[in-house]
């Protein structure tokens, strides 16, 4: 090992993190090289000086200050009064508020579909009763589809004939 290689590994040598093989090579070189030996000792001295610094403890009241800050941040995170009034729900139910739009749309759509179905069914049931009444009068249909406009007109005329007093 030469001085250039030794210099490269001096940091790890000082920290004692070299593997056994590399450590042995470093020690062998340092034994015979006063310059590298001096540098290694000085760097080790620096590490010792830094380690010797007193560790400063957190000031008294640190946890109280921390808890006060956490509470303050929680307050800041709450929505303002105006927003709460407009939305009309406490922030705890914001989860529900987010799904209100789709839910409302579903309700409206269902109502629209249901309403249209109601009218459809009314007409269908009206048609069915009409057809039933006509069938009981032994009236045949001109068209295979009794609900087509043409058949409805024919049925209408026939029913008028049936209802007229003889």
């Amino acid at each position, binding site marked *: 090992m030469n001085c250039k290689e030794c210099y490269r590994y001096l940091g790890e040598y000082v920290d004692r993190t070299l593997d056994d093989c590399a450590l042995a090579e470093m020690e062998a070189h340092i034994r015979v090289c006063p310059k590298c030996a001096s540098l290694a000792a*000085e760097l080790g001295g620096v590490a010792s000086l830094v380690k010797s610094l007193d560790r400063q*403890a957190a000031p008294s009241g640190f946890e109280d200050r921390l808890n006060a800050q956490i509470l303050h941040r929680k307050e800041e995170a709450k929505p303002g009064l105006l927003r709460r009034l407009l939305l009309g729900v406490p922030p705890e139910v914001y989860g529900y508020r987010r799904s209100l739009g789709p839910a409302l749309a579903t309700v409206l759509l269902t109502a629209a579909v249901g309403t249209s179905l109601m009218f459809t069914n009314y007409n269908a049931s009206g048609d069915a009763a009409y057809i039933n009444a006509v069938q009981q009068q032994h009236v045949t249909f001109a068209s295979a589809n009794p609900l087509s406009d043409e058949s409805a007109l024919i049925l209408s005329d026939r029913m008028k004939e049936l209802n007229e007093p003889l």
Partner: protein
Amino acid sequence: MDYLVSTDAILVLRCQEDDSQAFDEIVRQYKDGIYNYILRMISNRDDAEDLAVEVFVRAFAAIKSFRRDSNLRTWLYRIATNLCIDKYRRYGIERKKLVPLEREYGDGEIRPMDLPDTSFDPEKLLGQKELSDQIHRAIAKLPEKLRAPILMYDMEDMSYGQIAEVLGCPIGTVKSRIFKARTQLRRMLLPYVQNT
């Protein structure tokens, strides 16, 4: 260290289950180390306390999304390091404005401190406190990129791997920075180093 890691994992799990006492325990365990680290990084007691409080406020806000396979300690120190860097960059604090190894002499000129006569034993001339001040001043003169790893390694007893995780750089970079920091400190503290 493995015991500490598993204890931290348990504390995080309890925090994520809204156990406030668990977070109090995390603060108790780490507040001194975090405060000390930040103080050595920015050399100002009031700001160091503010930043240390901010570390734990941010940790509290983000603990629910903390991945349990991560290391709690390195996470806290990463928050602390980033806050210190932000502090420097936001307020434009430069190295020379921190506690410098300079003094104003009788003629009003500010020059680098004259190194004491090395024939005297510094430990006889200066008390331990003054020696600590000298070391602290020397550390404060280091660029932040070198100051953080050497503080974490020599003062906080973190490993190369943990420091790499905090700084988000390879282990080789951590070793290189620690080495450079020590060579610079050596130049500034040579009389004291030669007497250790």
